[in-house]
């Protein structure tokens, strides 16, 4: 497993390199944003540990560049400030996990193992509907190439609608497929989630069929590549 470690502090880098090496990773180290971006762009890493406070280019910008270029390597961000706003901007840029400094080395290793497990075997059996794309293996969706930020309930709703696109699906059917058996089944909540989904994917993709339910269709003028 190849890991890219991006950290500007020399002592911390040395320690992490040792620890990662002991855990069986092949470690490349970058000490600033520019180097990190170059390495991440040219080498096929399995996972990246990215400090946010970096010289030259900051961590969030590096991550954004990678994601714009289509790199899907899982990224764990290290942040010293620990503020949630930093974590949120890291996730918006495409991070998969975060760790707040100072941290225990074992914690970092555990998180990396989890990330690698998650990303293992991503195949592209993607669903699509017009500009909408959904990758069930990675549990990710995008609209017109822009990644969507969905909660798991929203994701499940979209997944179900995409699997049955073009067909009118009743609220009851959606409730049954969205919730576990022990979950509160309230068909009004479907409206809430459809509303939220519309906000994220555009208002016109999910059509309300009065008295019957909902239907997902490509937008007019959108060709369906699937």
């Amino acid at each position, binding site marked *: 497993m190849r890991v890219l470690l991006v950290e500007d502090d020399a002592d911390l880098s040395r320690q992490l390199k040792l620890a990662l090496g002991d855990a069986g990773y092949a470690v490349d180290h970058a000490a600033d944003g520019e180097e990190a971006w170059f390495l991440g762009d040219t080498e096929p890493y399995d996972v990246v540990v990215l400090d946010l406070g970096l010289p030259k280019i900051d961590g969030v910008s590096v991550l954004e560049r990678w994601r714009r270029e289509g790199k899907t390597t899982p990224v764990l961000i290290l942040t010293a400030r620990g503020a949630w*706003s930093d*974590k949120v901007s890291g996730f918006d840029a495409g991070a998969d996990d975060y760790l707040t*400094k100072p941290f*225990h080395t074992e914690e970092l290793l555990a998180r990396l193992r989890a990330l690698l497990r*998650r990303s293992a075997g991503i195949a592209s059996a993607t669903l699509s509907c017009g500009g909408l794309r959904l990758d069930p293996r990675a549990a990710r969706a995008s609209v017109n190439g822009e990644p969507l930020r969905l909660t798991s309930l929203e994701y499940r709703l979209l997944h179900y609608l995409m699997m049955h696109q073009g067909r009118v699906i009743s609220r009851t059917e959606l409730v049954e497929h969205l919730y576990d058996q022990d979950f509160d089944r309230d068909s009004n909540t479907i409206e809430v989630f459809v509303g939220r989904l519309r906000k994220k994917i555009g208002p016109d993709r999910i059509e309300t069929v009065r008295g019957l339910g909902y239907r997902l269709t490509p937008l007019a003028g959108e060709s369906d590549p699937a």
Partner: protein
Amino acid sequence: MTDPVGGSGENEPAPIERDSWGRWFGRPGRSLTRRLIWLASAWIVLALVVAGWALTTQYQETALRRLGNVLSDTIDEVVFASNASPDGVVVAEIKDARTLRALSGKYWAVAEPAPDGSLRTLVRSPSLAGETLMVPDELPERLEAAFGETISYNASGPLRKRLRVAASMKRLPGRDAPLVFMAGIDRSNIDADTRQFATFTWTALLILGAGLVIAVFLQVQIGLRPLFGLRNEIADVRKGKAARIVHSYPLEIQPLAEQVNRLLDQNQETVERQRTHVGNLAHALKTPLSVMLAEAGSQKGELPDLVRRQTEVMKAQVDHHLRRARAAARAHVLGERTPIAEVLDEMAVMLERVFEEKGVEIDWRAPDNLGFRGERQDLQEILGNLMENACKWAQRRVRISAGPTHLGQMVVVVEDDGPGLPAEQREAALERGARMDETTPGSGLGLSIVVELTRAYGGRITLGDSDMGGLKVLLELPAAEA
């Protein structure tokens, strides 16, 4: 500026009293409105009193002058009708009905100065019916001094009526001794007219005055309306409904609005600066702490263990005090409004990804228009820590519901289906620095930060049992009116 963000406690300004009577009456020094109205009213009353006095006086003067003309005419008639001789005077009949009818109210008399200084009546009009016209003591001297001219005075006549009397001393051909010609007329008519005029004038002026005072009142109200508007807008900023003063105001108070905006900017800037300093300090300290922690962790022995333990304490202390400083720097920022649904959404998306292995599902509900009266970063901090905690302890499910309550507050409930927290540990969990989640690494001060931020915003936090089986955290936070 010595302490731009310091000062604890609420500096609540007095509530805005709209249209209360106390604003108009009472000590004028305290209210601009009152001052303007009192000043204008005093001026109006003074001007109207002077005008009323001038008008009534002028009216009376004119009436008396007209009466004086009638009396002069009468004297002239009598003079022409008189035939004087050293022995006496004979006045031919004057064809004026009023001087003939007894006690008609119009009289004349011809008299001569007696040696004792009084006047002796020689001839009198039939209307006098034997009475004499009253003569003031000093009249003969004054007539003599102003020989040939007419002197008017008030007198009491027959039937106790008030008379206007004119007298003139003349010398007639055929007689050396001077004669005094007098004419009198009842003035009750013109007195009544004057009274009526005065009544009418004062009534009209009173109405005019009242009208003017009302007009001033309205003018002040309308004129000062932008000022009230500005005040309400500033109140909105304080309440978190607006971030800045956005309306434009008249020339005179627009600079005030701009200064308020500049003050808001400055406040914001100061807070930002503070936060940047604090953040830099945190960043500067945390990387060395990470190094120490990792180095000590990689070695066995007493010293590494000690270093490791103490580094943990340092980390906790740094976290605690830096966040505390940030919390203090924050709650004072004015005019911020953060939609809670947005923050819940981004947190849910992020935390579900972080806890993907565990398969945690976050179900959140919040009205779209519900806003938190405060900074986005702070709400992220509060909800992030609570939700992260919930995800950490949950088996699978985390539920969050937010809704408005009365009095500009809102309630956020965060629940999970984890093991929950025994009642006796809840108190300790809310205390500063309590680390109940020691068994789950990488956490620590989450809850105490939430407690401090919540308190900084004047909110409340309570722990309880959830019907899902785990912990229920109930937050009360200030809501921003939409």
